[in-house]
């Protein structure tokens, strides 16, 4: 049984892209604070969408709602048209949503390889079958390939917690990819990363996107955003203030105001 889903054709340039992930009127409230105030976002299939905005604008909250960690106060989230509002994270994962975290979140006491294997073991089979699946050749092969793709295969037996920051960033992305997700959400992938490694990451993301993986990237590094993203959505104080191709956004008055003030 192949771990990889059927090959997806990258969307032809110029064809209208179906939103694979969409939020409609997403509203999230923490006590007295309104973090998201009716946000509509479409993540086009096969594209790379950038989600930007000043700190505290609600980007991470949106992502947490979409991935199931938070239950939105109101509004809808759909995946390929299917209502997935309030679905638990592991169900979103099984649908094909992967993500990385702003603060590195892996399993520090387990080896890198075990981290990778854990990232995929739940995508197939049942709880019972997993008990007996001791040899995991296909999964190990895939894990090693992904680690090689990221350039960190030599660290496979190291404790994940002992890796350097940059190595963990790469590992994070590798883990998110293990189950061959349709959509990958990257939460500030370039934060604290040196320029050479940024190049590496941009390369990998571009390569993966060329083979059909959809990306949504939260990022503050506007150079990276301009280079990678085909489309941007800008949030400020929990509302969407602009959306469109990068060059349009760059010139948008409201966006400049949000970031830099009047």
């Amino acid at each position, binding site marked *: 049984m192949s771990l990889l889903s059927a090959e997806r054709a990258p969307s032809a340039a110029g064809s209208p892209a179906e939103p694979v992930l969409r939020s409609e009127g997403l509203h999230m409230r*923490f006590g007295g604070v309104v973090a998201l105030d009716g946000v509509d976002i479409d993540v086009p299939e096969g594209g790379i969408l950038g989600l930007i905005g000043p700190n505290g604008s609600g980007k991470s909250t949106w992502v947490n709602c979409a991935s*199931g*960690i*938070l*239950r939105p106060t109101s509004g809808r989230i759909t995946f390929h048209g299917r209502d997935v509002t309030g679905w*638990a*994270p592991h169900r979103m994962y099984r649908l094909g949503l992967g993500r990385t975290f702003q603060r590195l979140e892996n399993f520090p006491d387990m080896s890198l390889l075990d981290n990778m294997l854990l990232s995929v073991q739940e995508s197939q089979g049942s709880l019972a079958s997993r008990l007996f699946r001791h040899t995991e050749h296909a999964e190990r092969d895939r894990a090693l390939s992904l680690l090689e793709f990221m350039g960190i295969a030599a660290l496979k037996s190291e404790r994940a917690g002992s890796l350097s920051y940059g190595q963990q960033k790469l590992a994070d992305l590798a883990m998110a990819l293990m189950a061959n997700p349709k959509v990958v959400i990257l939460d500030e992938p370039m934060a604290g990363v040196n320029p050479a490694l940024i190049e590496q990451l941009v390369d990998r993301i571009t390569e993966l996107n060329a083979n059909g993986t959809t990306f949504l990237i939260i990022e503050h590094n506007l150079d990276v955003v301009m280079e990678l993203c085909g489309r941007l959505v800008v949030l400020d104080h929990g509302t969407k203030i602009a959306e469109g191709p990068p060059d349009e956004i760059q010139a948008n008055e409201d966006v400049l105001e949000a970031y830099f003030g009047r």
Partner: protein
Amino acid sequence: MSILLGVLVGGIAFGSVYAMLAIGFSLLWQMSRTINFAQGDFVTVVGFVFVAFAVTLGWPLALAAAAAVVVAAILLGIVVRKTIIARLLRHGVLPLVVASIALSILIQNFFVAFVTAQAEPAPSLFPTGVIHVDGVSIGVDQIGNFVVATLMIVALQIFLHRTRTGKALRATAQNGAAARVVGIDPARMITIAFVINAVLVAVAAILLSPIFAVQYNQGTGLGLDAFYAAIIGGFNRIRGALVGGVLVGLLESVGAAYVSSAYDTGIVVAVLMIVLLVRPEGLLGARELVREYHE
């Protein structure tokens, strides 16, 4: 009817004291995620200290009581916080829980081995006597317990809502990271919480000791009661612990009177399990928004 009223009065009197223990418990949890399994044994410690001052040394009761509270604040508040808790906080909740269990075992066996296994009678702060109201007999000490406990809880509420430190404490409990941003020192807040807990425990001990007599193994039952109270009422809110405490007092009183004294805790446990099934955050507890995936 008068029996029922008497039972209810007794329940509320006890309940108000349990409430103090439960509130201290809840405070520790809110501030530092500590589940203090030794709460009941802290009561035993103060009980023995109080007896030592009041009986062995023969000090006047008010002095002995005050001294016991001070000793508690230092020993059970500051010392415990700065030694054990300080080291363990970084390792997470599990070590804290196990350490508090070990502390409980340590305290109990310390008293058996080095002090006495006997029950030590303790003097009451209140005169003996009974007041009759509408055919109901109310003990003076029951009134006294209720009044003292209420005063303590009111004082705590004033502290938490009207003083700067109190507000800082509440802020830290609600959002530790944000509190740190505005300059509140979370470590200091935790220490304050421990001291407050110690004081609450001390007062509860002084009120309860004349009723139960001080003995090494008292702590288990009391600690459990405080625990149940906090869970039933709501771990993460002080008013929850308050309500929980009074409720447990009432349930035990009613249970002992109308069912059987063997099952009085049984009723509490039954209610506990129902609450856990139906409303796990407690009667007045707050539902946490994020899926509970982390400690």
